[in-house]
């Protein structure tokens, strides 16, 4: 019986080869058991086709779009910054530096035998400011302490990021 049903379902679904199809058509026409089973399965097939779909809540689409909007709004600033802006800033600095270097190289007097006498242009009464007197030991120690704290802070941030990346993976 199962085999008959399988054959008939294949026929109803249109999954038969032309030969199988003509054989089943003949069987339905000649065999009463086949015909009755075919009618039963066809009725079931029509019934299954008429299954009603469930209706989601009225605000479903709105909720989905709102959820997407909220998610987009929560994107961290780092990811939200347009890459083009960053590229633009980088390009500006590259062009500015390239221009400055080019101008310097072009305006430099390559034919001169020696380097220009820079010392001659320095005013005679130029004095290097004496800052060593104002740098006392506590200031140096404070500066070093600040550096150590900053270093530890950056190292901690680096380790935390590594940890978070591991958890995401």
């Amino acid at each position, binding site marked *: 019986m199962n085999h008959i049903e399988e054959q008939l*379902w294949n026929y109803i679904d249109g999954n038969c080869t032309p030969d199988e199809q003509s054989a089943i058509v003949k069987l339905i026409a000649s065999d009463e058991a086949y015909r009755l089973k075919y009618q039963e399965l066809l009725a079931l097939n029509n019934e*299954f*086709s008429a*299954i009603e779909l*469930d209706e*989601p809540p009225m605000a479903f*689409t709105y909720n*989905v779009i709102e*959820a997407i909007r909220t998610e987009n709004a929560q994107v961290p600033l780092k990811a939200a910054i347009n890459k083009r802006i960053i590229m633009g800033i980088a390009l500006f600095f590259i062009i500015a530096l390239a221009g400055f270097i080019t101008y310097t190289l072009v305006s430099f007097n390559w034919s001169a035998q020696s380097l220009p006498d820079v010392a001659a242009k320095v005013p005679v009464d130029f004095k290097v400011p004496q800052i060593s007197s104002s740098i006392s030991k506590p200031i140096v120690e404070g500066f070093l302490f600040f550096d150590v704290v900053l270093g530890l802070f950056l190292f901690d941030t680096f380790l935390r990021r590594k940890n978070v990346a591991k958890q995401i993976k």
Partner: protein
Amino acid sequence: MQSKLSDIELIDQVLAGNQSAYADLVKRHQRFVFTLAMRFAKGREDAEEIAQDCFIKAYRSLSTFQRQAKFSTWLYSIVYTTAMTFLRKKRVDTDSIDDEGTFIQVESQSSAYDVNNAENKSRSFYLNQAIEQLLPDDAAIITMFYKGEQSLEEIGQALGMEANTVKVKLFRARQRLKDKLERNLKHEAKELI
């Protein structure tokens, strides 16, 4: 009057930054996605959560949709994986109160049955009731085949199975559905007598 845009045209608009085009896509597929989610969740709230999650995931990975299959097939594969993850998570969460949960579900189903008994005597009511009693996989395959306009190959793609496996599963699911439908109708006839 503007003709109805295809799924692919709407996707192109979404990728170009038009978010309202995605609302149109959601409206177009929400009934089927929700129904499919209901086949797994068996409760409207959970189904809504699955369906919503599925549309959000689809939006996030819309740019990776390769357009070799229909959008609906791709979307249904997301529904399937989302629903499976949801069920797995739910099983873990409610493991200790599993019996109680089943009891509540059965009780609420039968009470709903009693309330609606008088007004929902149509075949479609019994058919939906029988589908609810099927295993999620069977119910999903039947729904996708009859209402999702999906071929056996496409259902296979969505569920990660061979087309032949889907064919066998569909055959068995239809048999089980037929049995359940007959049993429910017999039970109803006995009650009336």
